[in-house]
């Protein structure tokens, strides 16, 4: 990458820059004309110098001028022109002036547009190049760089560079040309005035940049402080658990406040200087016209200068300071972005950057087919200079299972990363199936080797996307475009070529099904389920499928099976004589195992509109209650409920877990509720103010008759709620139709989970183990109807959240292992990949994976030496050295390190 900004600009935008030059030159000529025309208008047309008699004519558009004296002063004539009378002559001249103005505007418009394009193209190229470098940086580098700082550099810090690229050559040319034209024009009119203007400009151009030097230092400080602030904020977000756990929020506040203070200081000084410079600059440019009026006026009076020339000089001078000022600004900007560029590029420069060929796209790389893993004299010197891996040599067949064990910090993790070629060895070689892995491109290592570390990263997408991620090495099938999309794609490709960015199409099919050993998406489902079973995740995914809301796009596929399962469930409950274990949603009946809210809405809320917490305040719900005469009932119920809660929970200390588990009122709200009750005792329920009534109205919606047994909803109340339910559905305003999906025995409910759709009701409270037995029954029915794959499919669509946070840490590891298994690597390297799991699951997963990878290579860094028993070969490491190597049975009783490790397990 070019070390200097101008090197970068010249190398990649030379052609574009040169294309603008003719336009700039043309604009100079037009600009000169626009200065010269007013003089002619005043002197010739208005003052009538060319028209001594009423009938005389003047020549318009005759192009002739005298060469300057140093060129011989010979008159040159290019066009004879038209003869015009005085008024038409004035008209023609002013029209010509208008023409030059319009033409000049058009030229500027063209130049600006081209500059904009050029800048954006260069910015695109630069950002892409920086990102490309991030992908090629060696892993240890990331221990020193914060992700937020990298993002801040690529996104924000290079932004001004894009603007500058367009300005880099054109602006000095344009502005310099303009200034020179104006200066030349003034000099041409009058040498004295010209010298004066030149003197002022010289002062400006020498003095101002000097004053601005300190500004550059400040700008650099500001850039670094800004980047560090972004890094610190990201740190706080990543470490938020530690902040809460150790009560350090105020320390972090202080730190950020101090940083903001530092930024303020930098900016304060920056602004002070900036505005001082601005003041000086303005003063210098405005003092000149004063001199012009004084001296120029004197010259006109004494007859050494004509009035038209003075007006033109003043007009020309009006245009002089601004190009000069902008030129100075440009110079300032140049220094500023040069510093920024150097700063950023320095961060992305690394001698150990992987060569681009390492990550080149290879359609069908030669992958190891059988053979052996041969590590010879491997060593790795870490950043502190210690030998983390020290001269390790071993051989193992590609059909063997190898366990790597050792005491803490024995170098096994580093060895695993070396074998996976995630770090480059400081010395030694690794061959897998005859291929030198230390030199092979990632197209080979990334496909032949599956590596899973102890805490793997999941992308915030679905489980499926995370699994097939390992198969996206190259676009397998090009995307098909038609019509506008095709034109757009062609345009994007042309631009990509121009800016040196990747030509690969992100919309193509990247998933390499063949690499997973399947023919296409449908077979892939089966493969995914297979690997999920190996890592013991299929039940979890099944549960997720049952309990999460399926993607609305799947509803078409789901509706029919879900409804048949609903029917089957109903029949099964009946045939087992336990139909009363589930209270189904019946439009004509009150459901005593559902909340009052569910009974009223008789549907699943979507979004916040009809959320149980917001119901009392919802205008439409209030109207429904009012119209059906239920408002009084609900208010009275809320009042009784409040009394009961106050009676039950007043004696408990704040923060007692019962509030969370049983109370309708939070402890901190108790005093308020008590006050409301006291007021209600005085003035009656109707006398309460709106907030108090809202508070009481909000309480009963969570009431479940059967569970809470408070006897607050009698049969007459139930009947009125049914009326309100009908009213609610019948009068639902169109804009709220999307906020609730009503229960319908004959329809699939998109807003509810599959489980809720099948049960279509509530498991009754008070039946011992009813939930567990109904759950088992549900699974049995799904199996009988052959719906298990469908449920799994929904589960595989489950969104794992940022960093996989919606899955448990153990499940994240399982997904990561499944991802590595899916691509069928020649070598599977597991670096303490199951350390987060409990011992029993670890045992189970180790057995399953070894069984699944029978006669295929597995290298496993184990945390428990005892598990090495299941492996054909054991490597025992200590302090970076391989100290024992052989079969488990030979090593375990030899009295060596493995023996000691086994005892301490």
């Amino acid at each position, binding site marked *: 990458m070019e070390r200097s900004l101008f090197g970068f600009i010249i190398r990649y935008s030379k052609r574009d820059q040169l294309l603008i030059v003719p336009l700039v030159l043309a604009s100079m000529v037009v600009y000169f004309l626009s200065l010269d025309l007013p003089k002619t208008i005043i002197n010739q047309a208005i003052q009538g110098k060319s028209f001594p008699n009423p009938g005389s004519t003047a020549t318009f558009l005759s192009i002739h001028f005298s060469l300057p004296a140093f060129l011989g002063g010979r008159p040159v004539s290019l066009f004879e022109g038209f003869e015009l009378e005085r008024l038409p002559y004035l008209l023609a001249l002013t029209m010509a002036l208008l023409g030059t103005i319009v033409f000049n505007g058009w030229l500027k418009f063209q130049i600006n547009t081209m500059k904009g394009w050029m800048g954006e193209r260069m910015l695109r190229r630069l950002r892409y190049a920086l990102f490309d470098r991030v992908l090629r940086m060696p892993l240890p580098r990331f221990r020193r760089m914060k992700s937020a700082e990298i993002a801040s550099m690529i996104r924000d810090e290079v932004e001004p560079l894009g603007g500058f690229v367009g300005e880099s050559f054109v602006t000095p040319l344009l502005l310099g040309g303009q200034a020179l034209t104006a200066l030349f024009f003034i000099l041409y009119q009058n040498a004295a005035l010209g010298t004066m203007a030149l003197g002022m400009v010289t002062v400006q151009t020498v003095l101002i940049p000097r004053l601005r030097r300190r500004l550059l230092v400040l700008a650099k400080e500001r850039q670094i402080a800004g980047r560090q602030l972004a890094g610190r904020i990201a740190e706080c977000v990543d470490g938020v658990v530690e902040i809460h756990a150790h009560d350090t929020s105020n320390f972090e506040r202080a730190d950020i406040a101090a940083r903001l203070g530092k930024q303020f200081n930098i900016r304060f000084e920056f602004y002070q200087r900036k505005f001082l410079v601005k003041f000086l600059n303005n003063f210098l440019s405005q003092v000149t016209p004063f001199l012009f009026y004084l001296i120029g006026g004197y010259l006109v009076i004494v007859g050494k200068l004509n009035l038209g020339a003075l007006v033109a000089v003043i007009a020309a001078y009006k245009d002089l300071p601004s190009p000069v000022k902008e030129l100075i600004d440009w110079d300032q900007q140049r220094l500023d972005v040069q510093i920024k560029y150097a700063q950023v590029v320095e961060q992305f420069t690394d001698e150990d950057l992987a060569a681009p060929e390492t990550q080149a796209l290879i359609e069908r790389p030669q992958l190891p087919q059988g053979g052996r893993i041969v590590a010879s004299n491997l060593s790795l010197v870490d950043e502190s200079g210690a030998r983390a891996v020290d001269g390790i040599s071993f051989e193992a067949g590609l059909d063997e299972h190898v366990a790597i064990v050792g005491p803490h910090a024995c170098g096994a993790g580093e060895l695993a990363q070396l074998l996976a070629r995630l770090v480059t060895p400081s010395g030694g070689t690794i061959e897998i199936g005859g291929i030198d892995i230390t030199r092979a491109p990632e197209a080979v290592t990334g496909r032949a080797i599956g590596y899973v570390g102890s805490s793997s990263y999941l992308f915030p997408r679905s489980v499926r996307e995370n699994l097939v991620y390992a198969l996206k090495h190259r676009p397998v099938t090009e995307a098909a475009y038609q019509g506008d999309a095709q034109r757009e794609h062609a345009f994007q490709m042309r631009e990509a070529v121009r800016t040196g960015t990747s030509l690969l199409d992100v919309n193509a099919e990247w998933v390499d099904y063949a690499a997973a050993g399947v023919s296409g998406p449908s077979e892939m489902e089966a493969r995914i389920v297979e690997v999920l079973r190996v890592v013991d995740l299929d039940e979890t995914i099944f549960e997720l499928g049952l309990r999460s809301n399926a993607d609305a796009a799947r509803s078409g596929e789901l509706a029919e099976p879900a409804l048949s399962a609903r029917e089957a469930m109903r029949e099964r409950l009946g045939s087992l004589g336990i139909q009363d274990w589930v209270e189904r949603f019946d439009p004509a009946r009150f459901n005593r195992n559902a909340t009052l809210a569910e009974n009223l809405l008789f549907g699943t809320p979507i979004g916040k509109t009809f959320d149980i917490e917001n119901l009392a305040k919802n205008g439409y719900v209030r109207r429904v209650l009012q119209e059906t005469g239920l408002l009084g009932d609900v208010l009275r119920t809320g009042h009784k409920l409040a009394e*009961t809660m106050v*009676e*039950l*929970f*007043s*004696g*408990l200390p704040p923060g007692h*877990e*019962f509030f969370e*588990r*049983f109370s309708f009122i939070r402890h901190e709200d108790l005093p308020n509720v008590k006050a409301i009750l006291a007021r209600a005792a005085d003035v009656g329920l109707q006398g309460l103010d709106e907030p108090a009534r809202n508070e009481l109205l909000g309480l009963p919606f969570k009431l479940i008759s059967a569970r*809470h*047994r*408070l*006897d607050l909803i009698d049969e007459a109340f139930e009947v009125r709620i049914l009326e309100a339910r009908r009213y609610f559905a019948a009068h639902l305003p169109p804009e709220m139709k999307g906020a609730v999906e009503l229960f319908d025995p004959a329809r699939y409910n998109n807003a509810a989970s599959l489980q809720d759709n099948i049960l279509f009701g509530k498991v009754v*409270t*008070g*039946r*011992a*183990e009813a939930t567990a037995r109904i759950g088992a029954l549900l699974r049995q029915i799904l199996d009988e109807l052959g719906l298990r794959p469908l449920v799994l499919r929904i589960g595989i669509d489950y969104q794992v959240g940022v960093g996989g946070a919606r899955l448990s840490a153990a499940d994240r590891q399982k997904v990561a292992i499944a991802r590595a298994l899916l691509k069928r690597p020649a070598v599977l390297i597991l670096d303490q990949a199951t350390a987060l799991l409990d011992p029993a699951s670890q045992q189970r997963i180790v057995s399953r994976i070894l069984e699944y990878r029978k006669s295929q290579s597995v290298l496993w860094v184990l945390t428990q030496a005892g598990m090495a028993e299941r492996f054909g070969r054991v490597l025992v490491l200590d302090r970076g050295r391989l100290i024992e190597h052989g079969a488990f049975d030979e090593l375990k009783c030899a009295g060596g390190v493995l023996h000691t490790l086994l005892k301490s397990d």
Partner: protein
Amino acid sequence: MTLEQEVELIRQIPIFSKIDPAMQKLLCFSSDRLTYEPGQVMFHVGDTADAAYVVIDGIAEMTVPTTAGEHIVVNTLGRNAVIGEIAIFGSVPRTATATAKTRLETLRIAKDMLVEVIRKNPDAAIEMIRILAERLANTTALLQREGSRTR
């Protein structure tokens, strides 16, 4: 049955009879009403304990397995009896298996609630000790009988 009726019932039970009425109500409110079918097992010996049960209606049978694989009935409990309190206060696994002999209605009192009640009410604690002492005497007598029979 409503909460009020359950409170009435709780008052009949010696452990809970003398505690504060608001506490009695909270005890019922925070507990689950559970119905077991005849033959349904409430808990097995060795399970970890998270709750005790008050029998509202029906009969429960407590059994312990012998080494020979048989089950000795150690107790039969009816209305107003408390089941499963030993494991809660002893922090040990269930000492016996509880099975519903008839259709059995119970109030399931969570461990932390019961501990709270005992901690706050000395009368309830004494009553609890009385029950446990009685159980111990019962079991000792049973063991003596069994011992003399097998000898």
